[in-house]
């Protein structure tokens, strides 16, 4: 296997892009990539792997490969990778494998999602496709309700109160406030968290990330050639994926995210780095409870103690383990099947020292992790500066 590097990373703002469809969002992201690295490199890519979750259920559109590459990229090999909300990260892994194996010289990896064109109960039903249809959604369970089940049990077992989670959202919104691509740039005042409306008790509006439309794209090439094209290629030092049971009810301990642990430890071993060498961690903060449980399963906190990293501001940009450095899913917005690519774009910006006000000083090693469902799929990458 060859080493693989990222030599281009582009995104469009996450938001409610009423006037744009999947094709338009993808086109805008590719245009931005052309502006960044030049059209020649984009057009040389031999394949494009596309992360998307709701194409079929919300956009009534499958076959995104042809939709996007057929018109915009001269008909190169292209298809969708679907792994629930981790689809973008799974597409990155597929691109990594394709380039690492030598099957292609360079590949584009895109995440694109258009989720705001459907509203109300139809959208809630469409969003439930990533749950277990036979044992969860048949009972009217939703992803948010599933997160609530975990959060209430967590609060019960570990004597945590609602306030234990507020700093995850305060931190995300503080970081999002200086990100021009963020869906929300408002800061959350201390105390406001406790008054937020409930979505599924105890998950409130301030615990759950807002779905938004978006598209982001990466250009991957073999590491040995990367230096020919850009001054600061970013290395993909590790790529690892793992799965857990689809339904929460089938887990021996629902408060332990096994796939998070397995994929994270595998990534650490592959990259040959220790936890204390990680300068930032873009984790899957679709719900504050997922942030807490991820920090525990990834080995940064003891069981039941993940929330204390938020309380102690260790997760801040200046802390020992910055997370959600551009706002995370919570404030940058959650473009679902594209979220994993946004994480990668943001990590690339951090490692290249072009994160502006959001810069984590001296960032050399970044971990990114995207989850399908509540950790049914976990895809972890470790990126390093050249």
């Amino acid at each position, binding site marked *: 296997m060859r080493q693989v590097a990222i030599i281009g990373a582009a995104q469009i703002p996450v938001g409610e892009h009423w006037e744009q469809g999947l094709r338009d969002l993808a086109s805008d992201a590719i245009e931005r990539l052309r502006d960044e690295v030049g059209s020649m490199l984009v057009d040389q890519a031999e394949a494009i792997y596309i992360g998307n979750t709701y194409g079929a259920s919300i956009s009534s559109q499958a076959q995104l490969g042809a939709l996007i590459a057929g018109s915009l990229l001269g008909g190169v090999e292209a298809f969708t990778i679907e792994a629930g909300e981790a689809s973008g990260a799974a597409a990155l892994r597929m691109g990594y494998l394709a380039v690492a194996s030598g099957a292609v010289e360079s590949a584009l990896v895109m995440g694109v999602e258009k989720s705001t064109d459907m509203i109300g*109960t*139809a959208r*809630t*039903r469409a*969003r*439930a496709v990533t749950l277990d249809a036979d*044992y*969860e*959604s*048949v*009972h*009217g*369970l*939703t992803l*948010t*309700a599933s997160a*609530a*089940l*975990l959060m*209430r*049990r967590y609060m*019960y077992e570990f004597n945590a109160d609602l306030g234990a989670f507020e700093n995850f959202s305060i931190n995300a919104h503080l970081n999002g406030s200086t990100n021009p691509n963020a869906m929300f740039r408002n800061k959350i005042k201390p105390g406001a968290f406790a008054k937020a409306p*409930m*979505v*599924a*008790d*105890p*998950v409130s509006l301030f615990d759950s990330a807002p779905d938004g439309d978006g598209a982001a794209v990466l250009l991957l090439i073999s590491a040995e050639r990367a230096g020919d094209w850009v001054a600061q290629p970013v290395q993909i030092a590790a790529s690892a994926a793992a799965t857990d*049971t689809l*339904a*929460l*009810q*089938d*887990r021996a301990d*629902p408060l332990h995210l096994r796939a998070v642990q397995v994929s994270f430890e595998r990534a650490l071993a592959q990259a040959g780095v220790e936890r204390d060498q990680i300068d930032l961690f873009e984790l899957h903060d679709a719900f504050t409870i997922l942030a807490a449980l991820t920090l525990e399963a990834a080995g940064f906190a003891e069981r039941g103690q993940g929330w204390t990293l938020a309380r102690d501001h260790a997760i801040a940009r200046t802390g020992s383990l910055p997370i959600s450095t551009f706002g995370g899913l919570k404030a940058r917005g959650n473009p679902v099947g594209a979220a994993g690519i946004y994480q990668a774009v943001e990590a690339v910006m951090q490692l290249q020292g072009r994160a502006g006000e959001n810069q984590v000083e001296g960032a050399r090693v970044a971990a990114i992790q995207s989850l399908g469902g509540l950790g049914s799929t976990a895809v972890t990458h470790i990126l390093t500066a050249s």
Partner: protein
Amino acid sequence: MEPRRQVEIQSERIASAGVGEIYSYTVVQEAPEGFEDQAPYIIALVKLDEGALISAQLTDIDANAVRIGQRVEMVTRKLTTEGKRGVIVYGYKFRPLLKGD
């Protein structure tokens, strides 16, 4: 590396008396299509006495009265109707345990 093991997909295999206690619960405010008439409704993870967890709605109980650890029993109920002329989906829900424990 630890050996791979097959996870028992419990709900397909277990024999249960249908009695257990609430492991966790929530109230769904934003219901999916097919459940809008029931919202807000309570969903729980129930830990059956035989050990398995199972997801289901709670019925015949007020949301304010639900507690983790509460004893519940399985009952057959209509879950949803697939559209105005669609099939009625029956399944299980849980209600507070009526008979003595």
